[in-house]
């Protein structure tokens, strides 16, 4: 990667992406914003992490963001996608991740938040998304990632959580959302990430899964999420980070992937789309920049493949902070 000159494959218009994110944050009443009102917490995580990866986190008001986050917390301890909405494990993780970026996890009642998350574990080790009981390995990842950031992983039954994830392993080496469900790159990222954080990657057949994952690279250089589907920039994260965690990333052509991501930029207005010439959004802007980070693109900070947060944030939490 370092030997390929960035001018050959196009340029990362970082400043335009920063401006795109800052403007999107302000446009609260656009149709797109109103439709996605309920997942603003996710959007904030995507936008702010991208800013940090481009070393521009200082361009937002930390106090404003943090006080808005706290208005989303429920009496149960969980966080909603936006003020007034119901709590859910999805938005609880995003809230904790944003606070980690600002090194402000200490403002939380950690016991309360961790109890909300731990309380969602079921008998069989799986996790529900909220009190209404939807089960999905995405939630297993979210719980493990969140509790590990809060240094409270021992509040859940880690062995059973791992057991449930392993029960979702398929014969192609991949993972699905529930036992028997088809392998999908997003689910694979969640399961491999959860196994990584809990020191359980020995359950993964790295060669079998590695081959399935490397065959996601299409002739365009982009990656798809499962066989015979179209490439999409968001899989640059899910497939790429999974390959990195199992040490098989050398099985794809990294230069071709980087070129695909760069071709998905809106060079005039900033932002990145799912495919070249499609409409941009914050979601794909984040995954494109995160993917470029994993490809060691110059000017982008290193990102941790399991936590999806900058490496310096994770190293600070894991190596220097004290336990729960």
């Amino acid at each position, binding site marked *: 990667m*370092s030997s390929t000159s960035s001018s050959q494959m196009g340029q990362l218009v970082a400043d335009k992406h920063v401006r795109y994110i800052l403007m999107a944050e302000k446009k609260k009443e*656009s*149709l797109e*914003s*109103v*439709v996605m*009102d*309920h*997942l603003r917490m996710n959007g904030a995580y995507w936008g702010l992490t991208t800013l940090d990866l481009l070393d521009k986190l200082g361009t937002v008001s930390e106090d404003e963001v943090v006080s808005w986050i706290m208005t989303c917390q429920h009496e149960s301890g969980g966080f*909603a996608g936006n003020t*007034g*909405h*119901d709590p859910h494990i999805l938005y609880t993780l995003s809230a904790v991740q944003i606070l980690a970026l600002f090194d402000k996890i200490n403002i939380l009642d950690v016991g309360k938040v961790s109890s909300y998350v731990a309380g969602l574990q079921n008998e069989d080790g799986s996790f529900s998304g909220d009190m*209404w*009981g*939807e089960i*999905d390995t995405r939630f297993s990842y979210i719980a493990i990632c969140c509790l*590990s950031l809060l240094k409270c992983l021992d509040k859940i039954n*880690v062995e059973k959580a791992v057991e449930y994830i392993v029960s979702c392993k398929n*014969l*192609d080496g991949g993972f699905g*959302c529930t036992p*028997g*469900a*088809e392998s999908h790159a997003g689910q694979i990222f969640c399961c491999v990430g959860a196994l990584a*954080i809990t*020191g*359980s*990657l*020995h359950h993964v057949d790295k060669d*079998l899964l*590695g081959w399935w994952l490397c*065959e996601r*690279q299409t002739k365009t250089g982009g990656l798809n999420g*499962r*066989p*015979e589907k179209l490439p999409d920039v968001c899989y640059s994260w899910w497939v790429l980070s999974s390959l*990195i*965690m*199992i*040490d098989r990333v050398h*099985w794809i*052509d990294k230069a*071709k992937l980087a070129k695909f991501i760069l071709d998905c930029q809106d060079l005039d207005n900033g932002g990145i*789309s*799912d*495919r070249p*010439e*499609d*409409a*941009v959004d914050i979601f794909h802007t984040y995954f494109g920049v995160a993917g470029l980070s*994993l490809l060691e693109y110059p000017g982008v900070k*290193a990102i*941790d*493949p*399991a936590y999806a947060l900058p490496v310096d944030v*994770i*190293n600070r939490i894991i*190596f*220097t902070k004290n336990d729960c």
Partner: protein
Amino acid sequence: MHGRPRKASKPEDEAASAAKAVKLRSLQSQFMTYHHEKIYTKEAIELSTKLLEINPEAYTAWNYRKLAVEDSLSRIESDPNSVKSILDEELRVVENALKQNFKSYGAWHHRKWVLSKGHSSTGNELKLLDKFQKLDPRNFHAWNYRRFVVELTNRSEQDELQYTDDMINNNFSNYSAWHNRSVLLSSLLANRVDGFIPEKKIPDEYEIVHQAIFTDPDDQSGWFYHLWLLAQTVNVESPLLTSSWPSHGSSVILSGAGCLIGSPFNVITFCSETGSVPLILYFDQAVGGVSSLTVTIDSELKGNENLVWEPISNKSSQVSCVWVARLKYLISEPCESKEYKVKVRLGNSPGIISSRGFNFSTPYEFVFTAHVHDTAKDSQERIVSWTDGFELWNAQSKDLNSLATSDQLNAGIDLKWRQAAIDSEIECFRLLADSKIGKLTLARLLMASEAMMSDAVVKGVHYEEILQLYNDLMALDSSHHHYYKDEHSVAFLHKVTSSSESLSRYLFRYRGMNNLVCLRLNKLSLSRIASVEKLLFVQMLDLSHNELHSTEGLEAMQLLSCLNLSHNRIRNFSALDSLRHVKQLKVLDVSHNHIGKHSVDTTRYLCSSPLSNSDWSQDDVRRQNPGLVTKYWDAYFVLRDLNLKQLDIAGNEIAGDEFNSFVLQVVPKLVWLNGQKPGN
């Protein structure tokens, strides 16, 4: 968010979408009021219906509807018709929402929630699913919901298998159908349901999947199913012992620490300060339950009745392919050298079980001779050289017992249908030899054929073709160059270790220290390590000038005391994590690698550390240098678990005054760093 074309918005479009935004915002606000004030009137519920029709992703509205349903149900008497009509309305709302977005998690879950109450007819559900299959046969929400309904209605696996048949016959390019087929078939085979016997079913399945692969070799839908069939053909259920060290019929010299004057040339000499030698068992799959109860040692060597067996794996795992115990031999009083026969037996008592639950059942034993010598007087530490003091061994097959294919491997397995299936597949795929999948599958089939071959005369005949196929693939499919490169290295090492003649070309003895057995695999463009089960006797390993980026696989080489990895592609110390299991390692050369050059660590989570949830015991280095420990965390965790005497790290970007002095703190017993004694 997906698949929308990028276009500048015209003023009339902007006005229209601004108007929609205002309407939706007002709808949402009104809904929130009803939700927070727990208002479940007909009017309020209808508002949520409208909201979900426009925006099925508004998850709080689905929660509200569940509360509204429970409120309604509590008000009516349990008249089944009223209950059904309330729930049917929910199903109608879900169906409308799915029309807007048939991938809405909230909508599908709401439907499951309704069905789980048990008052709705399940007959409609499969019909509804057929509709969705036609719209998008890859919609995994629909397939998952199908599984939910199948469980609710107790449909048989055979019926569902037939369904996948129909889907595949309709269109072979349906990976979701192939996936479901694999789940159902493996369950039917595992439960030995009527007619589902591997030797009959697997060949049938090969026929079916051929149509998918041969019709369009570029379509991936059947590839992974075929690979699974291959695994079913090759893998035997019951675990077997692949190799051991010492191997059956071998001799080994055991001594105390230091230099043994006059070690014989053809026998392995093992020296140890602790007076114990590793006994290694290498199985063909991960097993648990290896202990002094399931493995018995018969010998006059005292103190070995209750050996502690340990799996070579990370701390949270109780299973491994490789198990090690330390056989004690050192005698306290000086005496003359003595010979001991050691018999190791396993499989007599049950308890060794594979992770899939199958027993190691065939009793097996191996016998070796240990010559115990007195502790040497000369124990001066000498620097190990990788260039001078080596002599070609000219090892004969009797010296390399470990290469003899364990009779274990072929005992009691029904090989006939398996070999016939592989041969038939090889013939088939020769017809597809121009395509990528044709070449790749052929290479895998030929490797499988080699693995099953017991006839020593014919063994090794396929390797040239396999290596050529991988060379072809590197050119044909350059995006996946390094995948084929790794497979090429694996095949090459299998070839090298397939006979004593080929292996002996690479075997030397190191005159500088007890005639240690040295395997020189330098300058071979190796990107991957393999065949370690055949190399357990190796004490010095030269892998310099290759393309390795990790030591994955070396953990089984328990006799390894010297390792040369200079001039490779190692990027991090975390990539050397497997060496923490090699307790004998004293000399390590990782000079001229890429350590410190890259910001991405591909072995960050494959290394045992607090990042992967390992405990971290406090020590002085951590207390005195918290900053350096965070900066060089992987060097810290890996090096502090090794007992190195000699380390070379020059020629890496990480090396320098700060790092070198940190290393000396972490490894205080180091005698030579970069060829010098520290403090010089």
